[in-house]
C-alpha cells in the first residue's frame, strides 16, 4: 500500500530580495507524522515555513511542493489555509481594534464557507473556543482583547496554538513556537500540540533548541544548514546535536562530504 505524502518538497529553491535562502530542499512528510527541523540562525528554517504558507515576498525559483499530491505553490495563502495548512507564526502580528475571538470566528467561517460547510453561529463558536482555550490554558479574558495587542511573548505563542486547536488543520507548521518561553509555558504549549496529534494530521515543528523535542517527540529530525537539509535521522539526532552543537553540521557541509553516514571525527 503506497501512501500519498501529506507534503512533498522536491529540490525547492527560494529567494528573498534576490538573495537565495533555500538552495534545494527535499522533504517528505506522511499523514500522522511529526517532523522537526532544527538548525542554526540563518539556515533558512523560517523561510521554508513562510514559503510553504505562501508569503508573496518570497520567490520560489526552482523545485516543487506537492500537498496531498497537488501543486501547492500555485495557491494564494488563503487557499492554502482552506486546503488545511496552518502556520503558527514566530512573530504573531498585532491587529489593533479587532477582537481576538471575532478574528478567529471570521477566519474559521471563511474557511468553512470555502469548503462548502455551514458557518458556525457565534454561540456554537463560543462553546468550541472555550473548550479549546482550556487546552492551552489561555485565560478567557483573551477572547475579547484585540488580536495579539499587548500580549506578552508567551501569550502570543499560546494564542497561536489556540488558533491551531480551533482551526484543526491537516498540516500544522510551528515556527519557533518555543522561542522566548519559560519551561512552564513550554510544557503547556507542548501539551496543547500533543493533544492535536492524530493519524490524519502532520506537523512540521521548527525549533532552534532540542528542549522542545523533549515534550513533542518527533518521528523524524532534520537539520538545516545553509539552505539545505544537511542531515536527517530519528529523534536521537536532536540529542546528538545538543551535544555537538551546530558547528558540527556546518563543518560537515563545508568539507563537501555529502556521503551518507559520513561523520566528522
Amino acid at each position, binding site marked *: 500500500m503506497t501512501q500519498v505524502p501529506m507534503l512533498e518538497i522536491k529540490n525547492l529553491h527560494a529567494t528573498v530580495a534576490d538573495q537565495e535562502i533555500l538552495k534545494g530542499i527535499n522533504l517528505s512528510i506522511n499523514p500522522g507524522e511529526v517532523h522537526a527541523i532544527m538548525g542554526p540562525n540563518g539556515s533558512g528554517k523560517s523561510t521554508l515555513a513562510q514559503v510553504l504558507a505562501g508569503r508573496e515576498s518570497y520567490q520560489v525559483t526552482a523545485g516543487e511542493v506537492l500537498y496531498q499530491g497537488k501543486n501547492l505553490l500555485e495557491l494564494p495563502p488563503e487557499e492554502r*489555509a482552506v486546503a488545511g495548512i496552518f*502556520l503558527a507564526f514566530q512573530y504573531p502580528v498585532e491587529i489593533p481594534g479587532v477582537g481576538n475571538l471575532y478574528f478567529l470566528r471570521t477566519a474559521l467561517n471563511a474557511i468553512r464557507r470555502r469548503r462548502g460547510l455551514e458557518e458556525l453561529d457565534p454561540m456554537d463558536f463560543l462553546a468550541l473556543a472555550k473548550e479549546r482555550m482550556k487546552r492551552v490554558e489561555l485565560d478567557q479574558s483573551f477572547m475579547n482583547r484585540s488580536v495579539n495587542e499587548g500580549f506578552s511573548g508567551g501569550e502570543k505563542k499560546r494564542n497561536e496554538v489556540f488558533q491551531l486547536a480551533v482551526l484543526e488543520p491537516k498540516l500544522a507548521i510551528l515556527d519557533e513556537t518555543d522561542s522566548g518561553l519559560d519551561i512552564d509555558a513550554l510544557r503547556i504549549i507542548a501539551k496543547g500540540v500533543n493533544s492535536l496529534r492524530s493519524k490524519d494530521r502532520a506537523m512540521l515543528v521548527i525549533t532552534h533548541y532540542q528542549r522542545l523535542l523533549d515534550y513533542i517527540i518527533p518521528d523524524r529530525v532534520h537539520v538545516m544548514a545553509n539552505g539545505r537539509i544537511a542531515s536527517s535521522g530519528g529523534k536521537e539526532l536532536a540529542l546528538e546535536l545538543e551535544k555537538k552543537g551546530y558547528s558540527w553540521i556546518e563543518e560537515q557541509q563545508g568539507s563537501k562530504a555529502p556521503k551518507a553516514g559520513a561523520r566528522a571525527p
Partner: protein
Amino acid sequence: MTANAAVQEIAKREYEHGFVTPIESESAPKGLNEEIIRFISRKKNEPDFLLEWRLKSYRHWLKMQEPSWPNVHYPPIDYQDIIYYSAPKPKKSLGSLEELDPEILATYQKLGIPLEEQKRLAGVAVDAVFDSVSVATTFKEKLAEKGIIFCSFSEAVRNHPELVMKYLGSVVPYTDNYFATLNSAVFSDGSFCYVPKGVRCPMELSTYFRINAADTGQFERTLIVADEGSYVSYLEGCTAPMRDKNQLHAAVVELVALPGAQIKYSTVQNWYPGDSEGRGGIFNFVTKRGLAHVNAKISWTQVETGSAITWKYPSVILQGDNSIGEFYSVALTNNRQQADTGTKMIHLGKNTRSTILSKGISAGRGQNTYRGLVKILKGATNARNYTQCDSLLIGSHCGAHTFPYIEVRNNSSTAEHEACTSKIAEDQLFYCRQRGLSEEDAVSMIVNGFCKEVFRELPMEFAVEAQKLLSVSLEGAVG
C-alpha cells in the same frame, strides 16, 4: 485564481446608490441672482423676515471670495451653471405619507430608509429631503405628544416662525464663510428640531438627504434646538446618483444646546464619490457648528466615505461653563477622493472639556487631511482638550496630512495632542490570509479595527451600516 477573480468582480462593483428616479420635478432656471432668491422664497411662501435675510446673505456673498486655503484641488465652480431649486412636482397637494409620489417612496425603499411608519426600524423617526424639498416626516404625532417638534425647515418657518427667527444664524451667522453665506441665500429646505425643557427624545431622529435631479445643487439647512436639560440623538445620511458632472452640496447645520442639554449628532455621508478616474462626484462643502451653554454637551460623530471632495469642520463653541464638546470622525478617501476635514473646539467657559478623535484612511490616490483648531481663551480657566488623530495608509499612492492648530491663552488649561500614521503592513495582511481571510476581507477587518473607537460612538444600527459602507468603499483598494 478563483479568489483573484472574486476580487476583480467586487472591485468592478459600482456605487450602489447611483440610480436616478424618473420623477417630474419643478425647477428654477439655472443661475443665481436676486430674482432666483425671490423665486425660492415665493415658492415656499416665506415670511418677509426670511426673504430679507436671504437677500442680505446674497449681497454679502457677492463680496466674498471662495476659500483657497483647503488642501483640496478642483476646477473652478461656475455658480451660474447650477440649479438652485428643484422640487419633485406634487401630483396633488400632500396631506399624508400615503399620498407621497410612489416613485419617491420606492427610491427611499431602495435606499433602505424606513419611510413607512409600519416598517419602522427600531423607532427611528425620519425626515427625508429629496433634492431641495423635504418630502416626508414620520412619527410626527408620536413626537408631538412629548412636545418635540421635528419637521421640515419649511414647515418650521410656517408653523414656528418665532423659533426660527430666534435661532436661525445664531450659531453660523450669514456672514460666516463663503459656502455658509451661499447657503443662507438659497437654502431650500432641511430639517428642524426642537426638544422642550427636560425632555429626553425617545427615539433617534434621522434625516435622509438625496440629490436626484441633474445639475442641481443641494443647500439644506438643519437647525436643532435642545432646550434646558433635554436630550436628543440625531442621525443624518446622504446619497446621490452617479453623474459625470460634479454637483455642489453646501449645507449648514446649527445646533443649540441650552443649559444642561445634550445633543448627539451622527452623520454617515455617502454622497457619490466620482469614478475611479475622478470624474463626477459631489463637492461636499458643509458648515456644521454647535453652541453649548452651561453644563451642556454636544457630540459630533461622522463617518465620511463619499463625495469627491469633503470640506467640513463640525465644531463646538463651548460658551457655558462646564460644557463639553466631542468630535469623533472616520474619513476615508479612495481612488481620487479628497477630504479636508476636522473640527474646531472653541473654549470660552470655565472648566470646559473637549475630546477629538479622528481616524483618516487613505487608499488608491486619495488625499486625506485632518485640520483642527483647539482654541482656549483667556477666561476658559481649567479647560482641557485631548486630541488624537491617526492616519492609516493603504498602498503607496495616497496621502495623509495633519494640520493641528492649538491656541491656549491661559495657564491653567491643558491641551494634549497625539498623532500617528501607520500603513497596513504586509505582515498583517499575510497573517490574516494565512488564517483563511481573503485580501479584501483582511483589509476591511484591519480598517474596521482601526476605526473601532469611533464606531463605538455611533448608534447601533448606524454602526453596522458604517462598517458595511467602509468595506464597500474600500473595494479595489488593494491588489
